């Protein structure tokens, strides 16, 4: 480490040097927050389905119990998978897409992603509609930042899925 390097680094404290990118497109380039949003919708849908499922009463036949258990197991398995997909997609955006320059414009980003991941875990562990809704909201908030960094405005619209929750979409020109 040269003396001039240390001087340049010290100058950064007074006035940060602009960044010159020796930019590469491999492995970077293709990112979209939609995967995370879609997975969060699935989690919401699974919680809805679980809550709508009629629990077998004391007089239920073994067949009815079996059918209930089968359905519940399938919904829970899907909820597990998709909360993990949502978390993974957010991690990819966070680690690979977002850059320090984005963080300057959106200083709340780190906290937002961190809380989204925690909420994703909660939605995975519990049958908790609020956690699922919170996860969806977090993916929307992150999507909104993502599209702003890409220079697109966003719209909030009801998703065309059974969940019908509000969702952030980019307004492509």
């Amino acid at each position, binding site marked *: 480490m040269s003396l001039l390097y240390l001087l*340049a680094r010290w100058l950064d404290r007074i006035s940060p040097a602009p*960044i010159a990118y*020796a*930019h590469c*497109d491999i492995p970077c380039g293709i990112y979209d927050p939609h995967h995370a949003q879609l997975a969060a919708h699935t989690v919401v849908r699974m919680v809805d389905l679980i809550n709508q499922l009629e629990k077998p009463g004391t007089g239920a036949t073994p067949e009815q119990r079996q059918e209930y258990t089968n359905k519940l197991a399938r919904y829970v398995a899907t909820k597990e998978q998709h909360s993990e997909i949502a978390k993974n997609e957010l991690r990819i955006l966070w680690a690979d897409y977002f850059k320090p320059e984005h963080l300057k414009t959106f200083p709340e980003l780190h906290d937002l992603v961190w809380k989204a991941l925690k909420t994703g875990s909660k939605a995975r562990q519990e049958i908790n509609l609020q956690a699922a809704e919170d996860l969806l909201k977090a993916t929307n908030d992150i999507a909104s930042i993502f599209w702003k960094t890409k220079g697109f405005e966003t719209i909030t619209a009801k998703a065309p899925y059974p969940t019908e929750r509000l969702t952030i979409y980019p307004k492509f020109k």
Partner: protein
Amino acid sequence: MFPLRRFRVEDDSMRPELATGDYVLVNRWAYRFRPPAKGDIVVVRDPETPDRFLVKRISDVPDAGQIRLAGDNANRSRDSRTFGPIDLREIVGKVWIRLR
């Protein structure tokens, strides 16, 4: 206008010459007296994202008004192979020294 400007390097397309975290001092007057030459390392405004800068090597000077750029680390570089030749006016300056 002060001739020297400092930039911090990010990403890998100019390895091993330049690596993430290096600083470069750029001479903004370098091309006042002589034209850009093949092999020079320059900082330019990114033709695809106007408010950011790229650091690349000049791979060709097809005519007096334009240059082509390439990253040294060719399989990890977005350069004139993607965005074509760029205008001389987009050059900020020539890399004078690297600080590591």
